[in-house]
Every structure is written in C-alpha cells, then in structure tokens.
C-alpha cells in the first residue's frame, strides 16, 4: 500500500473486492486529523499523568511518553494531531482541567 493509492477505487467485478470493506490505502497515509474543528491542548503544568484522557480517547490518538517531572520519572500523555478528530472527550473528562480546547483556524 502506498500514497498513490489515494484515488477512489471502483472495482469492475465483485471478485476483485475483498469480503468486507477495507480501506485500500494504509491509515499511515490516510490522516484523519484534518476533520478536526476543535483542538485539545494539554497544559502540562496542571497535568497529573492520571491518564484518564488516554483511556477515554475513542481514536487511540493519545500516546504515552516517558519523561521527567521534578526529577521523577512520569508518563505523560501526548496528543497525536494526525488522527485526533477533536471530539473533546479528553477535555470533558480531565479531572484537573489540564486540557484546553481551542477552535481550529482555516489555513
């Protein structure tokens, strides 16, 4: 699968189709973050690394990264904007109000 397979595919015969609908292009190239109207932004000063946002994210768009805070090893959530669709669930669920939600602006 490559980038060039981004064009719309129309199969000529049913036999050419896989049994169920599967995207022809790899999701590595099909980045769905551009659907986003609102961008969640983590304020790491308030973040306690409880990871509730990571658990609730329906897209798996929050990754975990090992880092140091006050000389202690902590795991911090990092939003992957290539796939975050801006649903705002992380912002709603964050118990310390460490996630802000900002309107995206047109390019």
């Amino acid at each position, binding site marked *: 699968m490559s980038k060039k397979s981004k064009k719309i595919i129309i199969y000529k015969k*049913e036999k050419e*189709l*896989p049994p*169920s*609908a599967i995207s*022809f292009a*790899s*999701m590595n190239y099909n980045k769905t973050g551009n659907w986003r109207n609102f961008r969640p932004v983590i304020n790491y000063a308030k973040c306690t690394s409880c990871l509730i946002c990571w658990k609730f994210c329906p897209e798996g768009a929050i990754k975990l990264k090992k880092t140091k805070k006050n000389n202690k090893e902590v795991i911090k959530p990092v939003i992957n904007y290539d796939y975050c669709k801006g649903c705002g669930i992380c912002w709603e669920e964050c118990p310390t109000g460490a996630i802000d939600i900002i309107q995206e602006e047109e390019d």
Partner: protein
Amino acid sequence: MRKLLIGNHALSYGAKLSRAEVISAYPITPQTEVVELLSEMCASGELKAKFIKVESEHSAMASLIGASAVGVRTFTATSSQGLALMHEMLHWAVGARTPIVMGNINRALAPPWSVWTEQNDSLSQRDTGWMQLYAQNNQEVLDSVIQAYKVAESIDLPAMVILAAFVLSHTSETVEIPDQKKVDAFLPSYKRKYKLDPTDPHAFGGLTNTENYYELRYKIQKAMEKALNKWEEVGKEFEEIFGRKYGLIETYKVSDAKNLIISSATIASTARNAIDKLREKGEKVGLLRIRVFRPFPAKKVRGILNSIDKAVVIDRNIGFGASGIFYQEVKAAMYNEKNTPPIFGVVAGLGGRDVTSKHIIEIYEDTIKKNKPKSDIIWKGLKE
C-alpha cells in the same frame, strides 16, 4: 470420555474444545452457566483464553468483532433480551465478515417477563446474515459448536448454535466429550486473510460508496449459499472422525411416509416419540427436522416434500401478523414446485408451554384428516 452435562455446559465444552481464544459475555438467565464455566476454565488456566467482562451484550459482540478481525477464534453466549440488545452488532459482525460463534438459549421476550423457551428471540435475527442452527439434544449442542467454527471460518460468516431454555439449557444428559487431539485435527487454528494489524493499519467498514456496497451484499449471499454444502461436508467429516452423523436436516421414518411432521429443536425430538405411537396405529408418518435454519435448506425440504401427501409444521414461534416462521419458510420453498402438498401450520408452546408427545399426536390427527388448512395459523391448546 462421557460426562453428565446440562445444555449450557455442553456449549462451554464445545467452546473449550474448539480452543476459543477470546470470550466476551454478559450474564442472563438462562445462559449464565455457559459463561460461568468458561470463566472458571479461563481462571484455572484449563482454557487459554482472554475472558472479557463487559457491561452489556452490545459490548460483548462489539469486542468480539474486534478480536475476530485480528484473526483469533471468539465465543459468546446470550439469550432473549440480551440477543435483542446485540442486534446492531449482529449486522456488524456479518458485514465485517467475522466468523464468531455464539450460543443462544431460546427464551421468550418480555413483556411480560418470561424465562421459558420460545424461538422468537433468534428468529427476530433471521435476516442479519448469521447462520442459525437449532439443536435437539446436549450432545448435538457440543458437537455443533465445533462444526460451527469449521463452517463459519471457511466462509467468513458468524454462526449461532441455538438451544431451548431449560428443556436443554438446564437438563442434564450424558454427553460424549470428544478427544482434544481429534478436535484439533478436525478444527485447525483460525487463519484470517484481511486482518486488523497495527503494523499495516487499514480502516475497516468505513463509508463505502454506492459503487461497491451492492457487491459486498452479494458476497454475503454467496457465502450463505456456499455454507449449505459446507454444513453437509463438515457433518460428514465429523461423522468419519467422531461417529455421530449431522446435516442440514434430519429425517425419521420418511422412506415410506405419506404424511410428514416438520419441526425444529426439542419439539422435533419429542415428535419422534409421537411418530412411533402413530405408526403403531397404522399411520404412515415421518419427521423432517430442520437443523440448520440459515442458510435455509430449501432444496432438501423440496426433495422430501415433493413425494408427500400432507405435511404439518409445528412452530414454537410466531411472526405476528403472518404465521409460524418455519411454516412460512417451508411454504415459500415449495411455492414453485409441481407437487406441492397441503401444508398445515401450527403455533404451539409459546412462552415455554409444554408440547408433549400427546399434543403432537393430537396436532397430527386434527390436521391431517382435513383436505387443506383453513387459516395460516392453527392454535394448539388455546384457552378460548
């Protein structure tokens, strides 16, 4: 090895012998024992499977669709209201072509609350694309789970193994437990071609345009048609290894029969006893038991009904506003045939009311003496 098993535990042993790898379920009467035993097997390590506790049947099915898409063997069991709650995901499992095997215990739907047997729960899922198999005893329940995986995985469609609440689910019978090595040889591990794979991520079941959706539905229908032969093939292979015979239908004393009793599940097994008694009275009567209901074995039904004088279908279900559901299907299969016999349709035993050998004899004697049915439903034992 022989064991005394309730029908529910026959399902659990079927899943265990098939080496289900992910089991996800929510308890409901009269299904609870199925997953209770499986969770114990998982906890003790006797069965190496991931057991997912969920908050609803909808989630049970959703989680299995994901697991099956990865390419592992999956199992769940439910009943009645639970199956109804799963409905949306039942369609999804078919469209995603995930060969999940599920036990369903036939229980009447509420209101009013009932826990007793009736087939309307599973028959309400008739057009989802799930294969449906109605078992008549606990041995068949266990054997059918193993066969269901083999058929389901060969055509990428899910299958339901269905048993009557309490009549089988909570009744102990002697069941031969097949040897694990033989089951392993009969049922190799599941291999999936189009997998959910994080190293090569693709979107599954995304928005599909009108140019392709129609063909994908065609493929489901083709798979169902293929399954007709598969059930027969797998049944034969099963017989060669384990010595017990299975097919799409089962017949009893039909070779010289003039009249036929048609039914499914445990009413059909009781009907054998009624047929023996009727034959003692000189009646030339046989039994057609429809074991696999989806895909519907129309050719098999035609093959038998073409040479019959009269037939009566006994349904423990009702298509409100129409008639018994097996009755509709049998009639539809015969419609374009030259020698369609008169077919009577009886609705009996709803909500688990007993249908005994005596009732079946009465049903036979009341219907067969008439030339043709006066209505689409003949009620049995109605307190008029």
